[in-house]
């Protein structure tokens, strides 16, 4: 089974939730340093191709990925489901988890904003402020996914 944590950029909210799933984040107090040290966190837009980013495997051997959905999660989920159906992939093989619902869509704009000269630092600060509000919800989402029984998808497109 593979878990795909989805958010607009695929490198912010989804990275936090996926890290909680993998136990990289233990759910301790929010720490800017911890968040900034997460793999792929705040990767520049130029380095995001749209491919799922592999964060690791959980204790049960399930793949954990993040996926950018560019504020179009509804259509992305539909396309992904449709594509896997075309090839007869069972839906349980692929768990799509919406992390976008916990955070402001402004994060994506700020992420693009960082590409302007001298705006990287300001963009990152504002993104961290926006993520801080949703931090524990994202952690809880990641932990919930880890606890989900295999073969029983809890998150649907």
């Amino acid at each position, binding site marked *: 089974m*593979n878990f795909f944590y989805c958010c607009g950029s695929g490198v912010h909210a989804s990275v936090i939730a996926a890290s909680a799933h993998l136990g990289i984040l233990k759910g301790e107090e929010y720490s800017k340093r911890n968040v900034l040290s997460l793999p792929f966190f705040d990767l520049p837009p130029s380095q995001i*191709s*749209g*491919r*799922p980013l592999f964060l690791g495997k959980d204790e049960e051997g399930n*793949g954990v*990925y993040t*996926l*950018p959905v*560019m504020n*179009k999660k*509804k*259509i*992305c989920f*539909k*396309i*992904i489901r*449709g*594509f*896997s*159906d*075309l*090839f007869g*992939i069972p839906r349980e*093989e*692929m768990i799509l988890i919406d992390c976008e619902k916990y955070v402001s869509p402004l994060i994506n704009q700020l992420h693009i904003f960082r590409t302007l000269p001298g705006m990287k630092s300001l963009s990152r600060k504002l993104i961290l402020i926006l993520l801080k509000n949703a931090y524990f919800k994202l952690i809880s989402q990641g932990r919930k996914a880890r606890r989900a029984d295999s073969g029983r998808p809890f998150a649907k497109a």
Partner: protein
Amino acid sequence: MVKIIYHCFGGSHSSVLAAGIHLELLPSNRVPSAREILDLAYFDTQQSFQHGQFQFMGKDKFGNEIYTIGRQSLGDIFEPMLTGLAEILQIPSSEFLLVNTLPAVNFPMKLGGFLSRALKVIWIGRPLVLLGVQHSYFKFVNLVNSVKEDIQDKDAAGELSFFSPGDARA
């Protein structure tokens, strides 16, 4: 057998047209009439809620399955997302081909498509689309021919997965 997926913004015009040419429902040697184009299944009929749905158009003479899809403005991430997922899900890249038809779309098609599909002003949008289609028709024919050549060239090598629009000699 390959699943060939033609994709564009709305899945209503350019992808359907390319699929129609591929399936030989439309001629490759002349510009079709407006009636012939409008008779094509799904042409200028998609609603926004249908975006993201794979539409099966038919099988070509080699048994390849032809699909169209409207993927809205996911242009940049659509192909990497699906090829990435295919790798993870162990779907061989030789089993599908993604073809972006937007590079062959001209301004009248864009404007007409927007008027007809988004604003529902069909009486002006549809004739504009048809005008655009007839004007750029051979770009689509070239795109489809390139896709067919690409399949033949790469089929044995197992190197399919997406077709770069830049490869089309449009």
